[in-house]
C-alpha cells in the first residue's frame, strides 16, 4: 500500500479520491457533489439505473474532455489529476473497459494487444498470451478490425482482455455484464477477480444487472441516483434491496449507510 508521511505520522494514500465533484456534459449537470475513495486491491461495485450518470462518472475519472468538471477534485495516488488529460491519466495507470467502444477500421485487435505488451507487430504472442487469448475466445478476432462487426459479448471480451494486457492500477469497467452470455460472464468475471488478486490493482465496476456479483468478491458498493451517491453497503445486500424495492429505496431506506468506505 502506498504511504506518505504527513506531519510526522504515516498515512495511507488512497488509490483514487474524488472530492465534492460536479460534472457537466453539454452544459447539463450530470453529477453533483460526488465524493468517493477507492483503495488498492479491492473491487468496487457501482449500481444505478439508466441515465443516473454511471458512464459519466467513469468518463470523468478517465479525463474525457466532454465531461467538464465545474467543481471538486480528483486525486490519483495522492496527486491531483483534475487537470490531466486522458493520455496522462492512462500513463498513471487508469484505464476503461468501455460498454460501447468505437469501431476503428484497419486497426487490428492484435495491433493493440502487441502495443500494450511492448511487442513489435512482427513479434508473436507468447504461449501464455496465446492461451489467454484462446480462453477469451478471441483467437479468430486477432486480425479483425477492432470492434468492427463485433457482437456485444465479443466487445466485452475484447475490452477485458485488453485491460488484462494493459495492466492498469485502476480498472474502470462500464457494465461488463450486460449483453454477455452466461459462459462469457463467468469467464470475464473470473479473469477480473484473478487480475485483482494477482496484481493488487483495483477495479471500479458499473453494473445495473448485478450479473457479475456471483463471481467477483467485493465488499463495497454504492448507488448512483440522479447524479448523487446514496448508500455505501455490501454489494449483494444492496442488489437484493434494489431488486425487491427499486432504486428509490436506496434514497429512503432507514438502514442505508451514508458513510463512505
Amino acid at each position: 500500500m502506498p504511504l506518505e508521511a504527513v506531519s510526522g505520522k504515516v498515512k495511507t494514500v488512497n488509490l483514487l479520491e474524488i472530492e465534492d465533484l460536479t460534472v457537466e456534459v453539454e452544459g447539463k449537470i450530470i453529477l453533483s457533489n460526488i465524493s468517493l475513495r477507492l483503495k488498492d486491491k479491492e473491487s468496487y461495485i457501482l449500481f444505478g439505473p439508466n441515465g443516473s450518470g454511471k458512464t459519466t462518472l467513469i468518463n470523468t475519472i478517465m479525463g474525457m474532455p466532454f465531461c467538464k468538471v465545474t467543481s471538486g477534485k480528483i486525486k490519483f495516488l495522492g496527486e491531483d489529476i483534475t487537470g490531466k488529460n486522458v493520455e496522462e491519466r492512462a500513463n498513471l495507470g487508469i484505464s476503461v473497459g468501455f460498454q460501447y467502444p468505437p469501431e476503428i477500421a484497419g486497426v487490428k485487435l492484435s495491433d493493440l494487444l502487441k502495443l500494450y505488451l511492448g511487442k513489435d507487430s512482427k513479434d508473436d504472442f507468447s504461449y501464455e498470451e496465446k492461451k489467454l487469448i484462446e480462453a477469451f475466445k478471441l483467437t479468430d478476432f486477432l486480425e479483425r478490425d477492432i470492434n468492427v462487426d463485433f457482437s456485444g459479448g465479443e466487445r466485452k471480451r475484447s475490452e477485458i482482455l485488453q485491460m488484462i494486457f494493459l495492466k492498469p492500477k485502476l480498472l474502470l469497467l462500464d457494465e461488463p455484464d450486460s449483453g454477455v452470455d452466461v459462459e462469457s460472464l463467468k469467464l470475464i468475471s473470473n479473469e477480473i477477480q484473478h487480475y485483482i488478486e494477482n496484481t493488487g490493482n483495483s477495479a471500479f465496476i458499473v453494473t445495473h444487472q448485478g450479473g457479475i456479483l456471483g463471481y467477483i468478491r467485493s465488499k463495497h458498493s454504492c448507488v448512483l441516483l440522479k447524479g448523487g451517491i446514496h448508500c455505501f453497503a455490501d454489494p449483494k445486500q444492496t442488489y437484493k434491496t434494489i431488486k425487491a424495492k427499486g432504486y428509490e429505496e436506496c434514497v429512503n431506506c432507514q438502514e442505508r449507510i451514508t458513510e463512505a468506505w
Partner: protein
Amino acid sequence: MAKESELTKILHQILEEAYKAGIEKSEEKRSGTLMHVDQTTLYSKVNESFMGKLELMDTKEALQRYSWLDNYRWKLVNRDKDKFTKKVAEDFSGGYFIRILPNAQVIFPLQSCLMITKTDLEQRVHNIIIAEEGSKAHIISSCIQHSGVEKASHLGISEFYVKKGAMLNFTMIHNWSEQTLVRPRSAVLIEDRGEFVSNYLCMRPVKDVQMYPVAYCNGKNSKVSFNSILYGHEKSLLDIGSKAILNGKGSRAEMISRAIARKGSNIIVRGMIEGNNPECRGHLECRGLIMDNESLIQSVPELIARKKGAEITHEAAVGKISEKEILYLMTRKLSEDQAISMIIRGFMDVGIMELPKALNEEVNRIVDFVAQAN
C-alpha cells in the same frame, strides 16, 4: 548464397527508385519483371519457374509476333475518346503485353514498372493484358518517375481481357512527382465467371491524375472490384473514378475507396455502377478523411438501374478523424499524435484489396514507408 540479380545491371539510380515504388529486388519471388524506361522497354523476363504459364514482352514486339492482337488493341478503349488517347493512337513507345496462359496459376506477382527519367518527356504507352480461360494471376504495376525529373506526363492506355473463369488481381502503385501530369485510360472486359480486382494506390504527391477506368461485366456471374487508397498531399489533384457496366446475368461490382486529403490537395472520388441486367448487384463505398482547411474531398457516386431487379447501393462518409476513436486509443496510453497516425494507418489498410498474404505484407510495407516519410 545471394546470386546477383540480372536486374542490377540496370542503372543503379533507376533501380533505387523502382525499389521505393515496390519493385522486389529478388526476382525469385516474382513470376516476371518488365521495365519500361522513358520510351524503351529495357528489360523483360519471365522467371524460369513460370515459363509456360505466362508471356511478357513489349507491346510493340507482341504486335509483330501475334497478328491476332489487332482484335484486342483499341477494342475496349476508344482511340478517339480524348486528346490523350488520340496522341497514343498516333504514336506510342511500347508498353507491356502480358498474357496468362489458359488454366495457369500465377500465384506470385508479376511486376511491371513504367518509369520517366527525362524532364518534359511525354511517355505514351499501350498495355494489353489477357488472362486466358481458367487462369489466375496477381500483377503489380508500378509507375514511377526519377526524382531528378521535374515536368513530365504519362499517357497510358491499358486494355484488360478476363476470359471465362479467369481471375486477375491487378495492383497499380503510382509514385509520380509533384510536376507530373498523369492520364491513364483503362478498360476491362470480363467474360463468364471471370473476376477482375483492380487495386490502385497513389500515395506520393503528384501534380494531376485523372482517370476513370471502366469494367464491362458482360459474362454470366462476372465480377469486378475497384479498390483505391488515395493519399493526397502537397497540392495534388487526384480525380479518380471507376465505372462498372453490369450487363451479364448475376454480374457484380464492388467499389471501395479510402481518401486522405491534406496540405492543399484536392481529391475527387467518382464511381458509377450501371445495372443493365435484372440479376445484377453493385455496391459503392467511399470514405474520406479531411485533414486541414486547405484541402478538398468530393465524393460523386452515381447509380443507374435499367432493369427491375438490379440491386445497387452506395455509402459515403467524408469528414475529420473521429474524436471518439482518438480518445479510445488515448485511454490505452497512446498520445494524441500516435492515435491519429494509428487511425490513418488503419484507414489505409490494404486488407480491402484481396491480396494474397505475401503481397499484402509487401503493399503494407510500401504504405508504411510512405506513412513514415510523411
